[in-house]
């Protein structure tokens, strides 16, 4: 769960963007970085390959401000989407407080979406986390593709029980990015207040 430093009066929450390769996870973070006022965000760290594919993770700290005297901060991470980087993905999930699953709307990525969600469940389980115990929001990205699949079809393979809040997005244009982040952040904050 979130790291609470009562002496320094700080609360830190970790949100991870998960999903198949090239679905737009890094683009989400870049949009947040570009649109949040400079004094409320830290440096964006990207550990990427030469062709800008995420190698380990991207990281962006975001300051919410002070709540009841606690400086509240979100740490946003992405994972590398490529299948062979699973060791890195597993490491980054350590201590996660909330997850944004970024799905790709392209027809030829439907299977990759399903496999990535299955991989998320497996990796959470290896950390001893039940997928239902962590707030997850589903972002269906690249809605402007001419052959974009219906969201109902994408949800059917990722979230067949319809349990996750879903947001349609075009992350390269900033559409749906803040709505998604706001919802997962709110869920994390609610969970924080409910912790027993």
């Amino acid at each position, binding site marked *: 769960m979130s790291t609470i430093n009562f*002496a320094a009066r700080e609360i830190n929450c970790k949100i991870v963007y998960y999903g198949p390769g090239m679905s737009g996870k890094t683009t989400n973070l870049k949009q947040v970085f570009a649109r949040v006022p400079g004094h409320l965000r830290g440096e964006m760290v990207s550990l990427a390959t030469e062709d800008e594919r995420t190698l380990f993770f991207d990281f962006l700290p975001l300051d919410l401000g002070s709540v009841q005297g606690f400086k509240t901060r979100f740490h946003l991470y992405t994972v590398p989407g490529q299948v062979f980087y699973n060791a890195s993905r597993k490491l980054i999930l*350590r201590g996660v407080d909330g997850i944004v699953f970024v799905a790709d709307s392209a027809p030829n990525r439907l299977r990759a979406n399903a496999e990535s969600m299955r991989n998320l469940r497996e990796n959470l389980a290896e950390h001893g*986390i039940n997928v239902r115990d962590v707030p997850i929001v589903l972002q269906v990205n690249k809605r402007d593709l001419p052959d974009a699949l219906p969201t109902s079809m994408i949800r059917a393979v990722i979230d067949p029980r319809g349990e996750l809040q879903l947001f349609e997005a075009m992350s390269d244009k900033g559409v749906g990015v803040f709505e998604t982040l706001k919802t997962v*952040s709110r869920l994390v904050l609610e969970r924080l207040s409910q912790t027993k």
Partner: protein
Amino acid sequence: MIEPSLALYGDAYARVDAHIQDLLDVTGVRYGLLVDRKGFVLSHKEALWAPRPPALDSVATLVASNAAATAALANMLGERTFSEQIHQGENGTLYVESVGDQALLTLIFDASVPLGKVKVYARKTVAQLAAILEELKDIPEMQLNGDFSAGATALLDDLLG
């Protein structure tokens, strides 16, 4: 609950700070941080003469990620863990040592500071910090109430629209 929180309370926080400050004073280290395994800064001290520190959030995140990757490597090689990491550059050194299973002592210092001296004193500090973190395991978790959630959500609205 996903993972136990690591919460530093008043007296423990002050003692952690004091131990890190002592280490800085005796060794000449520039920055000293206690970072939890998730990459959050728990405590930070810097020498009086030190220039403005780098982005500590980023340093902590990268140190914790590096430690996690190193631990995974250790397991693959049949080791329980590699307890320390040393990165030496032309002008400075980054030294990281595990504080139990929960945290990482991170020290940044100039090339003029002998690594051996830092390692000797860091070991002593690590033992002191580990004892404090062990004590904290028995303290009941403090609760945040619904007002906290409401206040934070209002700030979210301001920030994200």
